[in-house]
């Protein structure tokens, strides 16, 4: 199984019925493909719809209905159009139950950096800072290391996205929960040992007894 699929499958278990969920562009958007059948949620696209659906049939695309990445989508029955003020009012006002975002780095404090690499890539933060500051639950979906370099660090070296501890980090190797005391290793991939996770992680990991395998079905 590819790293992205592992991550998306595991994150899908965090999604519960009746949640309002925002999935970031790229890897996070894959989570929608792996939801348990009995889970009914509304996905928000921060550009303006609650009740985002899959790509429309060929030839039926509406140029006025896209996701935050600009791709054509559908609206499910019960959907609501929202302007940017309502959309970010929901996000910043604590009405968004969960956001799933990609990450460049996460550190021992649980702080995320995911929006710029100084001198190299400055695309802008878009809605990321609002999402991390405002969502009830912030799940970071990212590969564990970048070309061998640690992405989970004692302290982020890249500019932060927010001064708020994220709720969960899900990688292809492990599930890690940032807490007041530090990063807690909650689960590991069935084929990966705790020592391998520790070696791939730049920050200290706390363990409370055994580290069970991730659920990937």
């Amino acid at each position, binding site marked *: 199984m590819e790293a992205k699929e592992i991550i998306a499958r595991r994150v899908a278990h965090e999604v519960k019925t009746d949640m309002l969920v925002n999935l970031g562009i790229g890897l996070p958007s894959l989570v929608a493909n792996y939801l348990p059948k009995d889970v009914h949620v509304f996905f928000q696209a921060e550009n303006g719809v609650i009740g985002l659906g899959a790509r429309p049939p060929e030839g039926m695309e509406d140029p006025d209905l896209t996701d935050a990445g600009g791709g054509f989508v559908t609206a499910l029955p019960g959907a609501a159009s929202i302007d*940017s003020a309502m959309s970010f009012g929901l996000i910043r006002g604590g009405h968004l139950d969960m956001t799933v975002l990609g990450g460049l780095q996460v550190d021992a404090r649980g702080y995320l950096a995911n929006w710029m690499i100084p001198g190299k890539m400055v695309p802008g933060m878009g*809605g990321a*800072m609002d999402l991390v500051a405002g969502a009830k639950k912030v799940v970071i979906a990212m590969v564990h290391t970048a070309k061998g370099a640690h992405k989970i660090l004692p302290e982020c070296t890249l500019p932060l996205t927010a001064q708020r501890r994220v709720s969960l980090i899900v990688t292809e190797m492990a599930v890690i929960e940032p807490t007041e005391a530090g990063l807690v290793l909650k689960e590991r991939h069935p084929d990966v040992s705790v020592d391998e996770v520790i070696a791939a992680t730049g920050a200290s990991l706390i363990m409370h007894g055994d580290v069970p395998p991730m659920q990937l079905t």
Partner: protein
Amino acid sequence: MKHACKPEQAAEMIPDGSVVLIGGFMAVGTPERIMDALVARGARNLTVVANDTAMPGKGIGKLISAGAVSRVIASHIGLNPETQQKMISGEIEVELVPQGTLVERIRAAGVGLGGVLTKTGLGTPVEDGKPTVEINGETFLLETPIRGDFALLAARQADYVGNLEYSLTAHNFNPIMALAAETVIAEPQLIVPVGVISPDSVKTPGVLVDHLIERAA
């Protein structure tokens, strides 16, 4: 009752050096005919306030390619490499603003508030040089209002008095920008008689709209 004007007339109204609020999210909900007319007129030195600069050949991307823009206030420029190049070369000054903060700053100008008190951006480079305010022991960033000389809006349909309706994800920044500029110019896909739009369906009251772009030929 409004008199419809041609896109070229709208472009003539907008002097070089103006601050223009432009609706749209990745060119969805952007008034394309006004964009084309501004390019045709050879507009220069515009300050564009918008969620993003779309991509080359679409929406605000047309203004960027044409060299009409000297300053951008946006949440995201990552999908328009030309904006990034012109930022690096110094041709365009870019202020990046978190998306939720951007819409609230525009709204603050539109509804007469002195500023926005938000947690978004705290502990990040967005905070640099800005005052913070302590309220009941919590710290908030003080962000100032953003007002435009012009707001350039796209709408689904307008009636003769300028009432506007928007469709699906083409709402985005348009309804808020309608409040925050000296002169508001709307480009509707359809113009319908007074009474066709029910009072309850109006998202932007016609009293806010100064000019309507005439129907497409």
